[in-house]
């Protein structure tokens, strides 16, 4: 039985994503949780590259691993400073929570299963110029709206942090 490189790559990325996600949920130490989240983001970027979306994979790396993760680390340092023994993340486990997560996972899998008939195996690599043509012509209004949303988010962050001063 031969296993293709593509299959190995898929399952390797899946394993990394699952380990990272489980670390986010189960880690007691804050820094280990952040490390798990970083592994998860890396796996997601890997999936983007795996499906031929090279630009998206790079954007994921820059925005999440280079931006959001660093932001989370800054937030952890700001919020959890000064505690003796290091920050510890608490969880409250209940049967209902675990059951709800299992039911939602099962329901999603069953609901999305009919889509598999549209799947095809081959992947196409997209040239960045195709993406830029799409963003700057066909999807220009959406692209502009995203820019406005980012600006609004930046303004919101400034207002929220500024409103904290008393």
């Amino acid at each position, binding site marked *: 039985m031969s296993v293709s490189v593509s299959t190995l790559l898929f399952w390797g990325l899946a394993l990394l994503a699952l380990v990272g996600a489980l670390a986010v949920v189960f880690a007691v130490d804050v820094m280990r949780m952040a490390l798990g989240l970083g592994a998860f983001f890396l796996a997601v970027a890997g999936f983007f590259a795996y499906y031929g979306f090279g630009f998206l994979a790079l954007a994921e790396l820059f925005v999440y691993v280079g931006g959001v993760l660093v932001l989370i680390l800054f937030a952890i340092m700001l919020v959890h400073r000064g505690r003796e023994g290091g920050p510890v993340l608490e969880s409250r486990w209940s049967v209902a929570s675990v059951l709800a*997560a299992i039911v939602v996972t099962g329901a999603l899998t069953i609901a999305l299963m009919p889509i598999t008939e549209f799947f095809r195996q081959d992947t196409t690599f997209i040239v960045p110029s195709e993406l830029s043509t799409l963003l700057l012509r066909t999807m220009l209004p959406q692209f502009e709206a995203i820019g406005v949303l980012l600006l609004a988010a930046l303004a919101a962050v400034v207002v929220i942090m500024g409103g904290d001063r008393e």
Partner: protein
Amino acid sequence: MNLIALASVLFGIGLLGVLVRRDIVAVLASIEVMLGGATVLLVGLGVSVRGASVSIEGIALMVVVVIAAEAAVALALLVAVARRMHTTRIDDLTEVKG
């Protein structure tokens, strides 16, 4: 099939984190896991639909930007709440001041 199962499991793990974690930082990270699972599924489906790959990459790029903006605002709220209330435990944040 594998992709759908993987995305659903990632979403479920993230949901479990949102339900059981007591710290806002961990809840935010769990929400990121849920959104990441959904984005992977979106991209995987986009590749599968003939002729839609470029459009899906554009849409996925916008989804990534929206999630990043959401994370930035949520973390700003987290820091503001932590400074004011001196806690990030969800159980301690039970009052809403109008």
